[in-house]
């Protein structure tokens, strides 16, 4: 009985399904690549599929973490891909104009410029959403479309290539045998978790997303919070932008971070944060981003023809979303399993032998006096 309840607690954890999907996807690779899980040390660097997944997934994790807090306030930020492009373009074009591209001060200044541009973009988004009351999807669409133009403008429509060792470190360098990007991601995630959970910011964000008017009436400065999350989201995107351009030592205004906003939104949803706002989970988002990156890797490993990768990806995403739906689980796995794998919706498993209806109904709302 106690193992049973422990199992139940495990399956009820909000990270259970995202992690289960991630593990499953990783295992799928094993028959195709027998040494998929092995990590080798070469030239003092760790190499292996697992390391690559985290490395290549780093920009997506960053963008998705920023997206999570925006979505938690009931908003959405479509401009992150454009911010990625602008940041990379600004930083690279600044460095390319330096006499000594390896000078640390120049690289730091370039990064600072990129981050500053992102803050401006975030303030603009936040201003439109919080002050002007424009729907987030429309407000952020502006920079999503115009931002790529700005990036092109900065790079003169060219792909700017640079040769700077310090800059290369962010997205392509190694530190303590691991890709430097992984440390950047770890720091950003840790800072985000600390900011939202060690302070009251997370609670206030969730309140604003859960009920904006009630939040105003308890005295939460919801405009300020909304502006903050858009700025934060843009800064996360900027770090991702630096990482991407650093990895290739080039700024491509057209293709850097293209469609990353959609993958980021997907990662947030897979991680269990509702698009309606309210409750959010940074941990879930990280797992969600890893799921998406693993999927991309898997597509290459098992040799899906490139023409059909998008279809393949879509199918997997549909399955993941269905698995997250308590109603779907109850229908497919049957009432008993459905109840056991019970839902986030709050359905407590009914006693053995009860009817199906109680179990299928995601959350029998009961009046408790």
């Amino acid at each position: 009985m106690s193992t049973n309840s422990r199992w139940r607690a495990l399956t009820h954890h909000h990270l259970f399904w995202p992690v289960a999907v991630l593990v499953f996807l990783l295992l799928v690779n094993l028959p195709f690549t027998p040494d998929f899980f092995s990590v080798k040390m070469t030239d003092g660097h760790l190499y292996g599929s697992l390391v690559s997944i985290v490395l290549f997934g780093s920009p997506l994790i960053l963008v998705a973490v920023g997206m999570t807090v925006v979505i938690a306030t009931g908003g959405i930020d479509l401009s992150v891909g454009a911010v990625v492009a602008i940041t990379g373009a600004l930083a690279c074009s600044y460095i390319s104009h330096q006499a000594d591209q390896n000078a640390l001060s120049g690289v730091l200044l370039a990064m600072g410029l990129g981050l500053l541009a992102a803050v401006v973009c975030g303030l603009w988004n936040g201003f439109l959403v919080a002050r002007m009351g424009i729907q987030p999807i429309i407000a952020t669409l502006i920079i999503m479309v115009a931002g790529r133009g700005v990036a092109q403008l900065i790079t003169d429509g060219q792909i700017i290539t640079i040769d700077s060792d310090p800059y290369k470190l962010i997205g392509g360098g190694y530190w303590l045998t691991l890709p430097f990007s992984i440390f950047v991601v770890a720091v950003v995630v840790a800072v985000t978790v600390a900011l939202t959970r060690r302070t009251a910011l997370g609670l206030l964000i969730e309140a604003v997303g859960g009920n904006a008017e009630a939040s105003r009436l308890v005295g939460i400065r919801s405009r300020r919070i909304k502006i903050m999350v858009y700025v934060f989201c843009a800064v996360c995107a900027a770090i991702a932008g630096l990482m991407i351009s650093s990895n290739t030592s080039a700024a491509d205004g057209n293709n850097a971070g293209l469609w990353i906003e959609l993958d980021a939104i997907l990662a947030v949803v897979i991680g269990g944060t509702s698009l309606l706002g309210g409750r959010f989970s940074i941990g879930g988002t990280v797992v969600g981003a890893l799921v998406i990156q693993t999927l991309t890797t898997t597509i290459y490993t098992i040799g899906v023809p490139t023409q059909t990768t998008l279809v393949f990806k879509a199918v997997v995403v549909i399955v993941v979303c269905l698995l997250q739906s308590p109603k779907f689980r109850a229908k497919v796995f049957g009432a008993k399993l459905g109840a056991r794998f019970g839902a986030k919706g709050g359905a407590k498993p009914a006693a053995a032998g009860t009817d199906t209806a109680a179990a299928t109904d995601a959350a029998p709302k009961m009046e408790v006096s």
Partner: protein
Amino acid sequence: MAEPRPVLEMTGIVKEFPGVRALSDVDFRLFPGEIHALMGENGAGKSTLIKVLTGVYSLDGGTITLDGKSVLFGSPLQAQQAGISTVYQEVNLCPNLSVAENIFIGREPTRMGRIQWKRMRKEAAELVDRLGLDIDVTAPLSSYPLAVQQLVAIVRSVGTGDSDGQGSGTKVLVLDEPTSSLDRDEVQELFRLMRRLKDEGVAILFVSHFLDQIYEICDRMTVLRNGTLVGEHMVADLDQVGLIQLMIGKALDQLEELHDQQLHSDVGETLLKAEGLGRAGGIDPFDLEIKKGEVLGLAGLLGSGRTELARLLFGADQPDSGKVTIGGKQVSMSAPNAAIGAGVAFCSENRKTEGLVPDLTVRENIILALQASRGWTRPIPVAQRDELVAKYIKALDIRPANPEARVGQLSGGNQQKVLLARWLITQPKLLILDEPTRGIDVGAKAEIQKLVVSLSEEGMSVLYIAAELEEVLRLSHTIGVLRDRRLVAQLANGPEITSSRIMETIASGEHQ
């Protein structure tokens, strides 16, 4: 008098939720052409019984007989098709569609897959007409006030299975607290419709927290307590005191003591002073003074400006004239933060839309106002937070006493207590309560009123708004009377002040 055969009979109904027996062995019957009240406190099992009847919940035991045939509904749709229609407290219609479209949504008359708009409008107009309502069926639903929307919802449910326009297919109509947001005239309009349907032979199951309404409209009532049947009575045979005793299981005369207690308590110096405060389209400029420890009650009909006045004092709406001083200092009422900073707290009448964050837990909802005033950088230390929350859960007897419970799943009375706790925790100087007892059961009502008296004794000022004049009279030191968005009088409460005196003041609308 030989009783006719009941149209609906529920016998030995049992419904269990994990760990809770929500209904045990409950019998219920409903006769054609009667209005039957289902009475009980929150959590007594009224909602559960209705949901079992309408197919929302499955049955764990017992039988349901409709028109002599044993039935078992797997879904609300099945119940509806069998002739049991339900209208809930919140109107579940589409405000952007026309009245006719709302009435026929999902069962529009079609010919070869094409909607027959003309026929739909004609039938809707006939249906509305037959029920004696004056509604333009082509107008968008949103152009009508909430009360009319409620009527449309009833028309819609009655019209179900009535596509030929001849006679009603509805045998049983369930009205779950339809009156909680209606004013007096609107309630009368609703009652007229209910009587009309009753004359047509429809059996109506009516749930309301307003006892006066029950006594006005109902023929018979069934009383539940803690998921068990207490009894079935003819309304004429049981007076209100007897009913309340049945509902809560003990005598309730403490409320009367409150009144005397309150009348004899003293108030201190001026806490809040509003001069010429007003907002166009909300309330005309008014002067108002609230003293320390004073309970100022606001009386007036719905729409007379009670809520608007309160919202100005909290900065929920921005005033466009006048000024407010609290404790001698002028406070700019530009946003709620300013008022909160000056020690004002406001419990809105709309618990769901303006009060609770349903996804958050009881604990999070309770600490929200305090946390907001501290700012996000200074979280309340965990130990202190848990202690505060536990203290207020206990003091206000919030059930379940689980700080981790999602607040959306609590009953109305307990949600109201959570909101009270949220503001009490900030230790306000002035607590504004807008309809704090609406839609909650008798027991919780009494608790909240007692709380107001004890807070006032401890020196907290309270601005108390209630639709029930008796409540305002019982608790207030001073009564502000509103009419047509104007504060027309401020009466010092005393033995000579009665509800009829206040009614007169409202009716005459003159300054005293």
